[in-house]
């Protein structure tokens, strides 16, 4: 069955380490191609997903866990769900005027049509990033 058929999923699971972000980008590029996103939307999705993964790596579980990225292509909607085993924390402004990761969340919100944060009862965090697809 093709990913382009409604309701089909694709999944990648990577170690929660910075050097794995490149693998996440290649995965998102593949998903974007299969969902026939235009180049601009594909780039935005890549940035948003990588920001969510970078948060998972930095605040969640660097070195000790995994991050899972699940792509769901539904009716006129593409959603990528980033799940980690740690706990999302807002950027800290204590260590200088310009936090390294302070831009991640605003970028996700600006680039996506919908961003949803969910804390799972088991202790992990899920970030769901959605784009509305043109007909």
């Amino acid at each position, binding site marked *: 069955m093709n990913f382009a058929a409604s309701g089909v999923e694709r999944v990648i699971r990577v170690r929660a380490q910075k050097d794995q972000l490149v693998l996440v*980008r290649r995965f998102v590029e593949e998903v974007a191609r299969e969902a026939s996103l235009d180049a601009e939307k594909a*780039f935005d999705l890549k*940035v948003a997903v990588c920001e969510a993964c970078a948060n998972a790596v930095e605040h969640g579980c660097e070195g000790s866990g995994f991050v899972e990225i699940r792509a769901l292509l539904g009716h006129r909607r593409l959603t990528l769900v980033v799940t980690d085993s740690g706990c999302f924390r807002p950027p800290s402004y204590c260590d200088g005027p310009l936090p390294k*990761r*302070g*831009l*991640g969340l605003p*970028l996700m919100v600006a680039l996506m049509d919908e961003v949803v944060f969910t804390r799972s009862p088991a202790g992990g965090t899920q970030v769901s990033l959605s784009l509305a697809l043109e007909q």
Partner: protein
Amino acid sequence: MSDIVVENREGMPLISIRGEIDQSNAHELEQALGHTLRVGSRFVLLDVSRLTYMDSAGLSVLLAATRQLRGSGWLGVVNPNSDLYRLFELVGLTADPGFRVFEGSSALADAQAAITEVLGW
């Protein structure tokens, strides 16, 4: 994942980045920029024509450098692709007086001419 080359073009520091900048390697860009700022450069050129990806980690480095150069000079970005340009706009870099964008086939020459004009050479 990325190559960063720092050179001196007629007295102006030119940093060329190729590839992708993310959280894993943004510190390399930070080091290259930090070095040129420490030696007192007021104008720094950043050739991003072969940079295909940058996220918040790299953008934060550019914002910090822009903030530092604002008032006395600027960070001049050369030939960003349209995706990178949108990100620069989104985070407010393109509206910052400490940040300039040079585009087109004469971008590098234009940037150097702009610096020469300010310095009165």
